[in-house]
């Protein structure tokens, strides 16, 4: 039986790692996006994600009380110790793939943080409220792109349809709540998350329909286990790049 403090630490790792890994993925677009304005938009979103993860992991480290910081949590954990969903660690692919991944995630965190900002933990509620404002914009950006790519040219429709087909396998995990969330809900630290999956489904399917994208694969195989540290092979490669500097020069300051 874990303590409330341990459950909260675990929950913060899940939230923080999602944002950290997605933020890193988006940063890979910097200098490579299809057009200058989109390059700036993706870099902005990336910085928002990394900022949110920094606040969440800092709070996690404080709650853990083992002398770690947000930096040691980000740079000195192995892949199996990361608790992010596999959706966010998937490689960028083409622009449609990045937008589809972003949209599925944005709807998720939009609904999740809308609830968590009412947490009774004052710091968590503050972080979530600030993040919610940023996420509202991220969702507007990815949703508008979903509509334009899906209902755009034959080529953009095909690419977005392929992206959604491929990404659907990662969508069950978003709602893989277990004893961690249950304990925090029982302790009234966070509001119940039970309605999240249905709300997500409704919101996502409405936009997919408007974007003329079909869900051919709704009953496909769904990956699971990342909240316990199980990941695709892509996370290790991502971490190698993200952590190399901090691990090569552990006392470096920037």
């Amino acid at each position, binding site marked *: 039986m874990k303590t409330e403090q341990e459950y909260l630490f675990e929950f913060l790792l899940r939230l923080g790692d999602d944002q950290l890994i997605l933020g890193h993925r988006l940063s890979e677009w910097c200098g490579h996006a299809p*057009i*200058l*304005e*989109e390059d*700036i*938009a993706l870099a*902005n979103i990336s910085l928002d994600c990394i900022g949110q993860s920094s606040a969440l992991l800092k709070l996690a480290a404080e709650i853990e009380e083992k002398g770690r910081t947000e930096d040691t949590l980000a740079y000195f954990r192995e892949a199996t110790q990361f608790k992010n969903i596999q959706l966010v660690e998937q490689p960028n692919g083409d622009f449609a793939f990045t937008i589809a991944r972003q949209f599925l995630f944005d709807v998720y965190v939009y609904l999740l943080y809308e609830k968590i900002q009412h947490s009774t933990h004052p710091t968590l509620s503050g972080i979530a409220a600030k993040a919610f404002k940023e996420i509202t*914009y991220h969702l*507007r*950006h990815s949703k*508008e792109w979903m509509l*334009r790519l899906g209902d755009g040219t034959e080529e953009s429709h095909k690419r977005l349809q392929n992206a959604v087909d491929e990404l659907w396998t990662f969508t069950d995990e978003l709602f893989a709540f277990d004893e961690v969330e249950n304990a925090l809900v029982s302790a009234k630290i966070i509001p119940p998350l039970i309605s999240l999956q249905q709300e997500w489904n409704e919101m996502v399917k409405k936009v997919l329909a408007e974007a003329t994208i079909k869900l051919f694969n709704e009953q496909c195989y769904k990956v699971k286990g990342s909240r316990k540290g199980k990941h695709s092979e892509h996370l290790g490669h991502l971490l190698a790049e993200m952590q190399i500097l901090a691990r090569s020069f552990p006392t470096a300051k920037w």
Partner: protein
Amino acid sequence: MSTTTDTQWQLWEIFVQSETGAPHEHAGSLHAPDAEMALQNARDVYSRRGEAISIWVVPTQCITATTPSDTQPFFDPAQDKIYRHPQFYHVPKSVKGL
């Protein structure tokens, strides 16, 4: 004569208002496929540090501008009509803020 095809999106001019009551001032231009995306891009390019409370986007092609060759006939005549400039009035010392 060679022609180059512009593969970029349509060009938009961006006007940013910094505070209530202030005029929307021209901030620059950017590319976007349509007005909604132009607003979003403008938010990222011209107001990410909180410079704006309101943004206008206008298709560049909708703006009619003077050309450099207009400079003489358009703007010169004012220069030699000094009576058009309010420089013959004596401003009382007690008037401030003029």
